[in-house]
């Protein structure tokens, strides 16, 4: 757990240092991600940021398709909390720091950056699955 707190601290400091360099908002299109490609990361949750307009999840793990790069922190973006609740069964406490997860995602087109758009998360210990497709809310019978 200490390791995860340290990682969160590093992310927080990076954010503060970066302030003023480029801080533009926030509600955006998602075509910076390559939606034709799916990658998988296995690792531990660092932090779930349950905020509008895009929830984010940091994972310390190994991406199967880039195993040679070793273990690293990847940042995943999703839709809003309200949409995740309705479309993917999410909760604010769906995952906790330190939990082992497997995440399928569409990577950033900028392959130098470790980021992606989360498509599906599986909590390894429980098998619980969460998805993040906002158009799923339109399926018939969703009450």
């Amino acid at each position, binding site marked *: 757990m200490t390791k995860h707190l340290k990682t969160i601290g590093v992310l927080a400091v990076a*954010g503060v240092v*970066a302030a003023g360099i*480029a801080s533009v*908002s926030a509600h955006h*299109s998602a075509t*910076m991600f390559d939606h034709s490609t799916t990658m998988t990361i296995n690792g531990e949750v660092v932090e779930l940021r349950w905020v509008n307009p895009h929830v984010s999840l940091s994972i310390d793990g190994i991406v199967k398709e880039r195993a040679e790069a070793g273990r690293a922190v990847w940042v995943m973006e999703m839709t809003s909390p309200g949409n995740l609740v309705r479309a993917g069964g999410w909760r604010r406490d769906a995952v906790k720091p330190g939990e082992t997860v497997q995440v399928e995602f569409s990577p950033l087109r900028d392959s130098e950056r470790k980021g992606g758009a989360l498509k599906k998360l599986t909590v390894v210990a429980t098998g619980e699955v969460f998805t993040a497709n906002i*158009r799923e809310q339109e399926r018939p019978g969703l009450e």
Partner: protein
Amino acid sequence: MRSRLLATMFVVLASAATADAQNAPKKPPAIINPPPTAQDYADLAKLPDWSGVWNPKITDQDQQARTNPPAWNEKVAKEVEKMWAEEKAGRPKLIFYGCFPEAHPSWMLVTHNAMEILFTPGRVTMLGESDGNRLRRIYTDGRPHPDTSDPTFHGHSIGHWEGDTLVVDTVDILPQAPLAISEAVGVPNDGDMRVTERIYLAEKDILHVELEITAPKILTKPWKTTRIFFRQRARKFDIVEGVCQLGDYREAKDENGHHVFVPVEKTEWGNLVAPK
């Protein structure tokens, strides 16, 4: 000597003006928000049931962006074509920058988030879940638009009921408010935009919003389009607070140990800067 005479004349004139003002009959202020009566509240029960959480049909938005585009003028059409190309190439223009509201009519056109609709005497209120303080006040008490323009993100809306259809007319929208057809394709309306809407239940749990958008600075003719919202009847979900700026900040502690927010780094397209 001359200056003393002028000063005396000024005092006399000023005194006369004050006396006139005191003697003039006072014009009562216009009452624009009279207290509702019990009958006003009873009349709300005659309106159609629009309660619950309404979600936009995003697949229809996707389709309409391609099949029913606005009649952009020649200059704007070129800009829009470039935006489509940039979005497709993974460089989506951040048209909703600064977490400003998507504004009217764009939040009816391209939102991905839910809304709720409240009826109170003389007013219909639309509250959006996200995207930065989405809120529309539609006055149904018979008032006209104001004589003096005071532009806002959502403009000045007046409405009336034709049967179970709410007919809305909106003016005084900020010129910076974009007319958007996707999250990354849209241009500022540049002023003089007018939006009329017919809002009604097409089915029990399907709300249609027929829009006619006149934007003479960017369109060659009014644009007619319809947006669809669907309702989840089991009431498992409530609208939640959605503060857009939270995505630009993260939680931290200040030098005194208090909980505060500090900015995070974002890309020019609005997503988080991921680690290298």
